[in-house]
């Protein structure tokens, strides 16, 4: 069977620089750069949006396109729709295509919903007769019966989107292209949209959709294409490709946080200690100040009789890692060097969410752990049996000070780590919990 959509070796380059840099004069613009056949300039002048993409979608298949931002998803849809031409390669589409790249593209705010339906329908390629036949369906689907004769500018954004979506799905194409527009209106309408798409699927239409909502992709699509920097990484069965994609995303995040930590370690050596807080009964900022600003620059203060030389986080298996899942066991290792013999030092940690919420803080003294004395190099570690924080980025602060609050070395807002959770819980942390269900069965009347 002929595929509904076939791409073979499709590449797309965009010019990187704004015209202004290239075109100094009007004459130059017309004569030099635009009129003559553009020679292929050095590769660096171009952004590669798509790189040698080949795939074919069989009729009746719903295919999802996933990938990070700027991976070429929307460009791919536009190339399939014929809105932009590929720089090289070929695209074949059999059947009538309808695009839903933007809801309500071409609506004119000054004229009524009714007139906009006719115009938008014409733009999407529907003959007037068919629009007239489907007019009532379109209006009913959009739930705009009472407002259809008011100018579109009086519509709420939800009404606007409902109308746009309703027209597009009523075009009844063979191939429907959708770009991240299913976030339309309220939950009830979104449900209707999904039902419409299921209906399309049942009738054997081909759908190609771009979405960041992996849940929606999983529900709707049999096949998924994963784009990364314009390259087709994987195309095939949905669950398999989504799995691979998730793996890569997680892997990327791990790497990013590990790099972040390495950078922090480099920074740590370069930060000079700030001035000591005035001696006396005054409390130290570390203890007093709940951070006011969401993100503060990294700070370091203290006399450095004990100097913290490295901070490492590890998972239960001793693997160095800076992304954890909620509830994991975490080790925090602090290496230090004492210039002279110090009696009874105190080591502490603090965890702040990046928006400034102080999530937790403790030290050896609070926990009743006595460090007798230190001299030279040493290491102290704290094991968090369970890190119950919810999905977010956090700062890890570490400190060494004396029992009467004389600071040796404070590292503040320097190290970061992240917690990832696949449950949509809300708040700061997850207390260990369980639900106890004791519901009485409703009485059945007449028994």
């Amino acid at each position: 069977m002929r595929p509904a959509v076939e791409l073979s070796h499709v590449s797309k380059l965009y010019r990187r620089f704004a015209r202004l840099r290239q075109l100094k004069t009007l004459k130059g613009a017309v004569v030099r750069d635009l009129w003559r056949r553009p020679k292929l300039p050095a590769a660096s002048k171009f952004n590669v949006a798509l790189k040698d993409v080949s795939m074919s979608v069989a009729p009746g298949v719903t295919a999802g396109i996933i990938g990070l931002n700027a991976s070429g998803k929307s460009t791919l849809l536009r190339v399939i729709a014929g809105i932009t031409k590929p720089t090289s390669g070929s695209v074949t589409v059999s059947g009538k295509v309808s695009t839903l790249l933007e809801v309500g593209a071409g609506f004119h705010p000054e004229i009524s919903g009714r007139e906009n339906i006719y115009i938008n329908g014409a733009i999407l390629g529907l003959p007037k007769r068919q629009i007239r036949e489907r007019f009532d369906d379109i209006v009913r689907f959009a739930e705009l019966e009472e407002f259809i004769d008011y100018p579109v500018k009086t519509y709420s954004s939800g009404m606007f989107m409902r109308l746009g979506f309703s027209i597009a799905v009523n075009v009844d194409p063979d191939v429907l292209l959708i770009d991240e527009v299913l976030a339309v209106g309220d939950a009830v309408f979104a449900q209707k949209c999904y039902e419409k798409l299921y209906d399309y699927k049942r009738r054997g239409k081909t759908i190609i959709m771009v979405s960041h909502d992996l849940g929606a992709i999983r529900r709707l699509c049999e096949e998924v294409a994963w784009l990364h920097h314009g390259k087709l990484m994987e195309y095939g069965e949905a669950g398999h490709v989504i799995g691979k994609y998730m793996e890569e995303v997680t892997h990327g995040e791990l790497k990013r946080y590990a790099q972040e930590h390495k950078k922090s370690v480099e920074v740590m050596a370069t930060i000079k200690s700030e001035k000591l807080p005035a001696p006396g009964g005054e409390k130290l900022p570390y203890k007093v100040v709940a951070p006011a600003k969401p993100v503060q620059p990294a700070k370091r203060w203290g006399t450095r009789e004990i100097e913290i030389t490295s901070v490492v986080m590890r998972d239960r298996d001793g693997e160095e890692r800076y992304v954890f899942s909620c509830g994991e066991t975490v080790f925090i290792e602090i290496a230090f060097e004492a210039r002279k013999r110090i009696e009874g030092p105190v080591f502490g940690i603090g965890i702040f969410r990046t928006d400034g919420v102080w999530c937790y803080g403790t030290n050896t003294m609070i926990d009743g752990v006595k460090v007798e004395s230190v001299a030279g190099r040493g290491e102290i570690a704290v094991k968090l049996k369970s890190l119950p924080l919810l999905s977010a980025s956090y700062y890890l602060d570490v400190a060494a000070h004396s029992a009467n609050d004389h600071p040796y070395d404070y590292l503040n807002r320097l190290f970061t780590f992240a917690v990832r959770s696949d449950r949509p819980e809300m708040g700061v942390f997850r207390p260990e919990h369980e639900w106890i269900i004791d519901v009485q069965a409703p009485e059945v009347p007449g028994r």
Partner: protein
Amino acid sequence: MIGSIVSIYRHRALVGALVSRELKARYRSSLLGMLWSFINPLLLMAVYATVFMVFLRFGMPKYASFLLAGLLPWIWFSSSINDAAVSIVSGGNLIKKVMFPAEILPLVSVLTNLVHYLLSLAILIPFVAIYGAPKPEQILGPTLAESAPSNPIWLVASFLLVMIIQFLFTYGLALALAALTVHLRDIQHIVLNLTTLWFFGSPIIYPVAQLSSTKVPTLLKRLAVDYNPIAYLVVAHHKIFLCRIAPSFMVLMAMLGAAFVVFYLGYLVFDKFRDSFAEEV
């Protein structure tokens, strides 16, 4: 180009819908609505008539009729190209999000203004009939004005031909400007000012006859009359609506040929840049 014409024909319903959208949207929520199509040219005519008859004491009798006859084709032309210059840039949503032939957008600008032009002709004819017109020699000069009034059928036919000529000329220019503006937004401002110069350089507020009797340098005279396509169109309107003389067949054919060349060149420019619209808009 044939393919382009075919695809416009296939999208004729869309062209119609877009033109009616423009017409409806322009006067929407104004009290007089479509009446503005009649009132606008009349008001503009009144402004110039006041300036030239009251302040500058311009001596032509029935000057208002003369002004109106020249203003109408000019308004069609200048509004069309000024609208068309930004048509693709401001229609960016359609170009980027929907697949449809881009040449429709400048066409819609030209056609929308054609509708206004046709409506305003319905004012011109009774206006000239009631108010009267200057004598042919006052408009065209003594040499050109000798021919007798033409046969009405030929008069109407020549008018239709003039409209076709003006349409081709305007659309050609509109295509080129629309495409170039996508790449160089400066063009819309240049066009706006050039049309003002073009207006005063064309025999709209003064008759051709006036120009030949003054001490204007010959080169400028030739630029304003002989090498100015708008001058031919305006003079054709003067002849047809004020003097009831049809322009000569040869002149019309030459104009048609020239208009077609402009249209074709404009189309070439447009076609050259077509593929870049979706990326540059």
